[in-house]
């Protein structure tokens, strides 16, 4: 089966920020969370996929069509919700819907009405006059019903209230039901990552940290409460604090502990947010601190 999105050797330099080289393949029916520190290049990557930003090197294909080529037919297959919406301010929800709906062959008007209703979105008000949370809701109402095979959401819920965030998760789970759709969601919301994602694509200061299946990533880590003193730099060791050792290679660590007769009273897995924190801090020293937040949007 062809991937819905295929990225190979992608690189882009913007001023003093360098993104890549990146490789990524998105299969049908999966949800990928794009995770990274502020300024890691998440939004830039999504804009590259949308061909809003042009790559210096590498290829991006949506359903086997090069996005930076002359064939623009792939755009019907992608619904993109940017983090910062440009150009919508002077228009009402009605006007925007009348513009957007006819552009997508699979537009689902019933679903649009449903989302408008559950989020209680006023359609007669100008977009620019809405609060940021309501703007995000309207944006979702105008993006999800496009029923494109790839849905790209760039921090879709950052201003939304807690109940609405929960509603959105259910909406997206429901939306995925046909099984041939995919989502890429850039998010700092841990619930999005826990409840929605199958894969995590982790970026740090423009570099790819990895592309992980969620459980595999968590299984790669374990926390041990050591009952006896142990030397430094045990294989797999990532951190140690007050006799609590975190390992990114439990198998090796345990082999070493057993071999050297070091006992532990307890072993537990890590929460996904702890793993992400480790992934993004471990690499802090590599990236350096010269990167500002200029590529955040």
């Amino acid at each position, binding site marked *: 089966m062809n991937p819905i999105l295929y990225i190979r050797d992608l690189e882009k330099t913007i*001023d003093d920020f360098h993104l890549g080289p990146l490789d990524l393949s998105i299969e049908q029916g999966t949800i990928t969370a794009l995770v990274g520190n502020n300024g890691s290049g998440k939004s830039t990557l999504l804009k590259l996929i949308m061909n809003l930003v042009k790559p210096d090197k590498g290829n991006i294909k949506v359903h086997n069509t090069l996005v930076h080529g002359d064939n623009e037919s792939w755009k019907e297959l992608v619904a993109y919700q940017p983090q910062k919406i*440009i*150009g919508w301010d002077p228009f009402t929800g009605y006007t925007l819907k009348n513009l957007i709906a006819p552009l997508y062959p699979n537009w689902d008007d019933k679903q649009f009405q449903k989302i408008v209703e559950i989020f209680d979105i006023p359609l007669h008000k100008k977009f620019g006059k809405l609060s940021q949370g309501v703007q995000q809701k309207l944006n979702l109402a105008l993006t999800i019903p496009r029923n494109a095979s790839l849905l790209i959401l760039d921090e879709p819920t950052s201003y939304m209230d807690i109940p609405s965030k929960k509603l959105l998760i259910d909406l997206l789970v429901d939306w995925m039901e046909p099984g041939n759709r995919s989502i890429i969601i850039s998010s700092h919301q841990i619930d999005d990552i826990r409840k929605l994602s199958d894969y995590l694509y982790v970026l740090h200061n423009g570099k790819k940290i990895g592309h992980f299946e969620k459980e595999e990533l968590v299984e790669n880590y374990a926390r041990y409460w050591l009952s006896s003193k142990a030397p430094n730099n045990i294989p797999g060791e990532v951190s140690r604090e007050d006799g609590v050792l975190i390992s990114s290679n439990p198998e090796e660590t345990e082999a070493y502990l057993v071999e050297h007769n070091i006992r532990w009273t307890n072993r537990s897995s890590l929460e996904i947010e702890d793993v992400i924190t480790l992934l993004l801090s471990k690499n802090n020293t590599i990236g350096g601190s010269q990167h500002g937040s200029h590529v955040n949007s």
Partner: protein
Amino acid sequence: MQKDIKRALQIMKPELKILRISYFWIFLFYTLYTILFIFGIDAQKNRFAGLDIFFVMLFIFGPLWFRPKELQIQKPNGDVWASPLTIMNLQLPIKRNIIVLKSIIFYFLGSFPFQLYMFVILYSFSPEIRTELDLISYLSFAIIWLSFGIYFGFSSLPIEVGYKMKSSVLNTILSLLLLGAIVVIIIVFPFYFTYGIVEWTIIFAIKWPIISAVISIFAAIIGYYYWKNKMLKLIKQADFQ
């Protein structure tokens, strides 16, 4: 082509709604301008180039002055300038050539009908014009300037679809210098060439009405394709961050 225009008009609907409100103001503006011309034609005879400046500026910048605030060019991020509507359209399944065509039509609708209106009023209410030019010459005169509005006026369009320009003090100074140079040329023009620019176009329209009109229309067509291709090139290359 017809299909493309239909598509462009379809995606222009939201913008036209906004333009509708501005239409009243543009109408008023052109009316006042025309009155100014009618009264200023005498002064023109005394090598006063102020009218030339107004005339040229009107055809180059007029359509931009009345652009609603929400549709004005901005620089969202980085060095690329664009209309917010261009960025909005690029995020949707709208082909780039349709976006370019839409920008051109939108500009055209905000300028051409009013310029045409101006020429009709000018002829109807200015006895000086009617004594100086017969109908054929006047038509030629109008065509010269309406065409100018296209091959010169469209030069303000590329910035709508992704024009890379660093905003620096140097660039600001340079663009001010360019503007100043245009004004100076217009003012100095009559001293070297006896008549002002507008006056010269009147002379051309009287002496060679057909040739002037044909050349102008030809220039307008070439101008249209030139700017359209330029815009297509820009929209393909720009980084809309």
